[in-house]
């Protein structure tokens, strides 16, 4: 935001008032974030097919675009835009039409607090981390709206599973970040990244054993939070056709798809900023911060894809068991342990 308002101030001089600068800067940042989201979806659909192909000893897309089907996502996009927009006759029309946008906006709002590079953050909030959890939890409403409004039992079951899973796994997800907040003493995403300055040994996941466990907990919970395998119960093809977006076509379906891949990248970005040092390089001085950040986040995304295509899907009861009886107690132990560690090593004020 600051970068953009400065840029506009330089371009227009005194032609714009502070309010105009604020609005222009905000709009530009929102546009950039929306473009980042769209390009995520484009790059990651291709990457996912290639990873899946590699793991299953086949090629994946090979034809469109000269080299290894690189233009496949573009072809898919054209196809999806050309599809007929179908609204089922007995659907709850306003809710049916609104649902994809609620999910998309919830995801886009969370992007505002991701620190890609020093100063390059759309909204440098004091409560950044807290804000990200809040707006992404509000997107759950969109899942329920979609499932209900479709007037289809598979959609409804998918939505019920998706919402139950999202509400449950939010808790270990947030609890796993609390030790980091305790160490940093701030919820501001910039402060959290700056606290990890000075090479890999200063990154939060290597701070102490409890934080390492917290990082693993965050990673597992984040996979469940974005409804991906092995936690992809909301859209089990064998039982629910496609889950809560069964009835959606064309552009509206594309919004679900976009939000799914954007959320995948979002949770990886949060993990990068909170546990993996954000834009700080492995060693040495800060160098190409934005690129370092994106590389770390993309590596985490590839790890999630690897897990998705390797592990079998859980059952619903196993899913809830893992969350409430294993991950939540472990996360609480991590919070307590990190506190004791801080007291023992004299880091607590």
């Amino acid at each position: 935001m600051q970068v953009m308002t400065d840029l506009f101030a330089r371009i227009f001089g005194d032609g714009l008032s502070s309010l105009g600068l604020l609005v222009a800067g905000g709009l530009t940042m929102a546009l950039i974030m929306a473009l980042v989201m769209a390009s995520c979806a484009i790059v990651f659909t291709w990457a996912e097919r290639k990873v899946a192909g590699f793991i299953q000893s086949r090629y994946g897309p090979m034809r469109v675009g000269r080299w290894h089907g690189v233009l496949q996502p573009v072809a898919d996009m054209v196809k999806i835009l050309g599809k007929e927009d179908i609204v089922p006759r007995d659907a709850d029309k306003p809710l049916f039409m609104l649902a994809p946008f609620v999910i998309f906006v919830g995801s886009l709002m969370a992007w505002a607090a991701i620190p890609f590079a020093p100063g390059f953050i759309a909204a440098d909030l004091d409560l950044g981390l807290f804000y990200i959890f809040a707006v992404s939890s509000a997107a759950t409403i969109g899942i329920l709206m979609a499932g209900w409004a479709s007037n289809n039992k598979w959609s409804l079951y998918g939505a019920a599973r998706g919402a139950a899973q999202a509400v449950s796994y939010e808790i270990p997800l947030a609890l796993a970040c609390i030790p980091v907040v305790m160490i940093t003493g701030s919820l501001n995403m910039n402060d959290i990244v700056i606290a990890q300055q000075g090479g890999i040994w200063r990154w939060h996941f290597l701070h102490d054993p409890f934080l390492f466990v917290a990082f693993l907990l965050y990673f597992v919970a984040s996979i469940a939070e974005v409804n991906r395998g092995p936690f992809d119960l909301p859209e089990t093809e064998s039982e629910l056709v496609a889950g809560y977006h069964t009835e959606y076509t064309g552009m509206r379906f594309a919004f679900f798809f976009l939000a799914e891949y954007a959320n995948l990248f979002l949770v990886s970005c949060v993990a990068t900023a909170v546990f993996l040092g954000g834009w700080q390089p492995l060693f040495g001085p800060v160098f190409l911060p934005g690129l370092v950040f994106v590389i770390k986040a993309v590596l985490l995304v590839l790890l999630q894809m690897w897990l998705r295509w390797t592990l079998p899907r859980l059952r619903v009861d196993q899913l809830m068991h893992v969350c409430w009886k294993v991950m939540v107690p472990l996360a609480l132990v991590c919070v307590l342990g990190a506190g004791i560690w801080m007291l023992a090593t004299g880091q607590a004020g």
Partner: protein
Amino acid sequence: METFLFYLCGGLMLGAAAMTVASRSAVAAAVWLVFSFVCAAGVFALLAAPFLAILQILIYAGAIMVLFLFVIMMLQGPVLPAEVAGRTVGRKALLALPAAAIAVILISWAARGREASFGATPVTGTAAAVAELLLNRYLLAFELISIVLLVAIVGAMSLGRNEEGQP
């Protein structure tokens, strides 16, 4: 600018609340209520209470309303047929009168001899300020509330169990 945003959020909040009462489908009512909560969060943010604003979204919009929607959907939330809704319009108007009267009394009482002021409130609701109050000054009350909540959870669990003692 702040005044404009305040009236925008407040107006949308009241409008959404009215739609919550007026909608015929329970799910639509719940979605309007979520919208009303989001606008309330906006008002909190304008009143220099960002922590409260985010809590409002996290707890009410993100958790409580999700549970509400869950219950409504599982029970196949009723949609009032149009003719029933038509019949109840008169009754609704009748019920709205005392509610409006109470609202007028409350607002006039609250506004009595006070300037409408916001944005420049001396107390700020940052996370640190809220934590200071909850974990220092009102620590005992805060912990007692958590015991009350624990009792409520245990009670709900024991009521929810069936005869064989299976959860």
